[in-house]
């Protein structure tokens, strides 16, 4: 008798179209980008759109090679990354502290949360002009704006993470006569880690968005600057290359976060 296996709950798949069924997942994923590239290539080759609105892909490619070879792209990426790392570190540390303080103490929460929420309502972009007047347009401005981007989600998620720790675990801590510090270190923080991680994820995304914003408005180096500059000179190839660089940095950060999260998840499973 043949062994038939099927996992309950998985809706049976409709028979797929032959064409795609034959292609691997990786190959199918490439269909759309290749189609877009082809269309782009044909469009610029036939001159459907002026060069200034849509440069030829070959031209963009060459430009990218030049910019990589000259170190220009790497330099601007480095500048942006440095800003994000510093700003994010400051903002995340402050946000984590505020989140923990508000999470652990209702008094702190009562005092700080309304003001914090009011502060959080103003989009990061809103702060840029105000801070430009206060601190000028140099490095401090960028760091503050990026830090603010990380601060709000970090504080918020840490706070909710701590508040949502199940009282049952806390009771275990009471039963074992844990000190306040043990309670925090052994129960509350580990239980709040997934939520804190969400804070890190949003914080990093917001930092990165804020960075691009502040570099667009006030900077003479960095990837955001490259965007504005390319735009002003009508060098669309530069704009596209900068966008790709921004996308790649975003992608790497995302992957990094994912694997860290996996690591944490594994540790969580190992513990259970």
């Amino acid at each position: 008798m043949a062994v038939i296996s099927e996992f309950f709950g998985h809706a049976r798949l409709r028979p797929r179209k032959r064409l795609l069924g034959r292609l691997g997942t990786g190959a199918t994923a490439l269909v759309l980008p290749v189609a877009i590239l082809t269309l782009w290539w044909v469009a610029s080759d036939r001159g459907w759109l002026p060069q200034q609105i849509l440069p030829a892909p070959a031209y963009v490619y060459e430009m990218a090679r030049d910019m990589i070879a000259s170190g220009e792209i790497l330099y601007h990426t480095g500048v942006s990354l440095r800003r994000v790392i510093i700003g994010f570190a400051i903002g995340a540390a402050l946000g984590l502290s505020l989140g923990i303080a508000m999470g652990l103490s209702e008094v702190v929460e009562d005092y700080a949360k309304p003001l914090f929420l009011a502060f959080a309502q103003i989009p990061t972009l809103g702060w840029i002009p105000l801070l430009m007047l206060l601190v000028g347009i140099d490095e401090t401005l960028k760091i503050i704006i990026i830090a603010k981007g990380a601060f709000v989600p970090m504080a918020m998620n840490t706070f909710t993470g701590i508040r949502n720790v199940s009282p049952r675990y806390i009771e275990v801590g009471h039963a074992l006569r844990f000190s306040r510090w043990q309670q925090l270190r052994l129960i509350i923080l580990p239980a709040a880690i997934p939520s804190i991680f969400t804070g890190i994820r949003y914080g990093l995304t917001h930092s990165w968005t804020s960075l691009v914003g502040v570099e667009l408005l006030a900077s003479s180096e960095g990837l955001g600057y490259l965007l504005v500059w390319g735009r002003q000179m009508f060098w669309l190839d530069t704009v596209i290359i900068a966008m790709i660089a921004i996308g790649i940095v975003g992608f790497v950060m995302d992957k990094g976060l994912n694997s860290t999260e996996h690591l944490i998840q594994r540790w969580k499973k190992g513990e259970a």
Partner: protein
Amino acid sequence: MTKVPHIQIENVTRKFQVSGGSLVALDNVTLDIAEGEFVTIVGASGCGKSTLLRLGAGLDTNHEGSVIHAGVPVDGPSLDRGMVFQEPRLFPWLTVERNIALGLENSGLPKSEKKQLVAQHLELVGLTAFAKAYPHQLSGGMAQRAGIARGLVNRPDVLFLDEPFGALDAITKTRLQDELQEIWAKERITMVLVTHDVDEAVYLGDRVVIMSPRPGRIREIVEVNLPRPRVRTAATLLQVRNRVLNSLNETTGAIDRERPAAVFEESATVSKQPITAFA
């Protein structure tokens, strides 16, 4: 009895692939069910009762052997074969009323008739006051009743019920058993009902199918040749009940040799069933 077989389950085997190994949930099961018959199925937990119902309803077609409904092989679900699931499976975003109406979604009936049928079934399961409630506002038993109403409302040809009264209190349970029996008698719906309650099985069934686990097999089929309406406390019914119980105890006894400690509990729960739910 020589009735036309309405549902024919012929040499059906169903295996599951579980962590590398293959688990035989049903092993060469054969069961003919006559039109308008009320068949009840009892058996220890995990002996394949739900699996058998899912095959019958056409929710699972991945088996060896054949399942035939009114002469046509079952190759998927059909509105002619209704199913009341073991868990109520209500749609949490719909009110009770709309959940029941789901059973009529594809019935093609005019709206007014649908409305009337839904109201009628709400009444039947005693949920009229909760028509506009969401599932999370119901108790377990109320949710189960809503699930029963959803299965019944479109009056299928065959209705498969998987422990429909499992979560109900004794009084509601007896009342719904009688209601179900009445609907069955009136509409001549073929019914296949899985239960852990032996009293319920003999009270409702024309025949009681006793299954044994590992692998899932039909051990014995007991005919309940008693006229309806039956009296729950009648000595004749108790006799049949004891026969079924004995047979069941032997099936669990079979595992007894395999896994002594755990099964002891199982057989204990079986014999702890109240002799009459409605004394």
